[in-house]
């Protein structure tokens, strides 16, 4: 009788342990769309922060950027020739010279084009 109980407890512990381990290993990706933004900044000013080596603390952070679309790419836009933003859902009804507010994850500064890059962006306005 006692043996049976210990056996059951062991099985239960094993199941819980397995469940926790599985959840740890296969945890969900960050959902940038639902995260609260840590900073709201205009596109030229964001670029300025990276150019003056003051942007590293923004890496991997969810931020809100405001600006005017200066060019359109495949599934992405560039704001004020200073911030490149790739969208989560590419089909957007945007055009050049539109004023936009968007939220995304800052992935770093691109020296080739001298722009700051954001991915997983969603349009706020």
């Amino acid at each position, binding site marked *: 009788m006692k043996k049976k109980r210990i056996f059951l407890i062991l099985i239960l512990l094993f199941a819980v342990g397995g469940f926790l381990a599985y959840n740890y290993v296969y945890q969900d990706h960050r959902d940038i769309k639902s995260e609260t933004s840590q900073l709201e900044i205009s596109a030229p000013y964001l670029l300025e922060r990276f150019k003056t080596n003051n942007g590293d603390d923004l890496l991997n952070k969810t931020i809100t950027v405001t600006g005017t679309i200066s060019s359109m790419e*495949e599934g992405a836009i560039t704001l004020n020739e200073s911030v490149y933003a790739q969208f989560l859902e590419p089909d957007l009804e945007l055009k050049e010279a539109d004023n936009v507010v968007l939220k995304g994850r800052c992935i770093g500064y691109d020296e080739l084009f001298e722009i700051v890059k954001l991915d997983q962006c969603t349009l706020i306005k």
Partner: protein
Amino acid sequence: MKTNTLLSIILFAYAVTAIGQEKYITKTGELTFEASVPSFEEVRAKNTNVSAVLEAETGNFAVLALMKGFRFKVALMEEHFNENYIESSQYPKTTFKGTIKDFDFSRLSEKSEYTILGTITLHGVEQQVEIPATISIADGTLLLAAQFVLRPEQFNIKIPSIVSKKIAEDVNVAAVFKLQKQK
């Protein structure tokens, strides 16, 4: 007369620099790498925000990829990649700078196999590489595709022995760039 000569020199100089600076660019290049081992979890990541610039005149080619832009299927793997292996906060980008051997823009339609010679900087380590690539042009878009193998140890990236069985020693890298003429 003097002003005319001067003007033509200026115009000529301007024209020459304009040709020399003709660039083909992209900000949405794709870089994929895979280090999967059969019967273990897939180790594969893709970055679709890679920048590349090709100078039509000289064949100079430059690439820049932000490490945080690599996306994995498994979130924890992405975290380990960034924090433990590639250390993307300390080394946020990887770059390639080099030249396409025997590149002649006007003969792109005849020849498509090229070799790109240059230096990859990854994880703070520079490595000379020779990368075979195919280049073609269609409707003004220059398509550059390349596949090559890199090894983590070349770049001083240490894989702990506990996971080393699950990560291949040879990492297959594939790059696809659709380059458009810079406006």
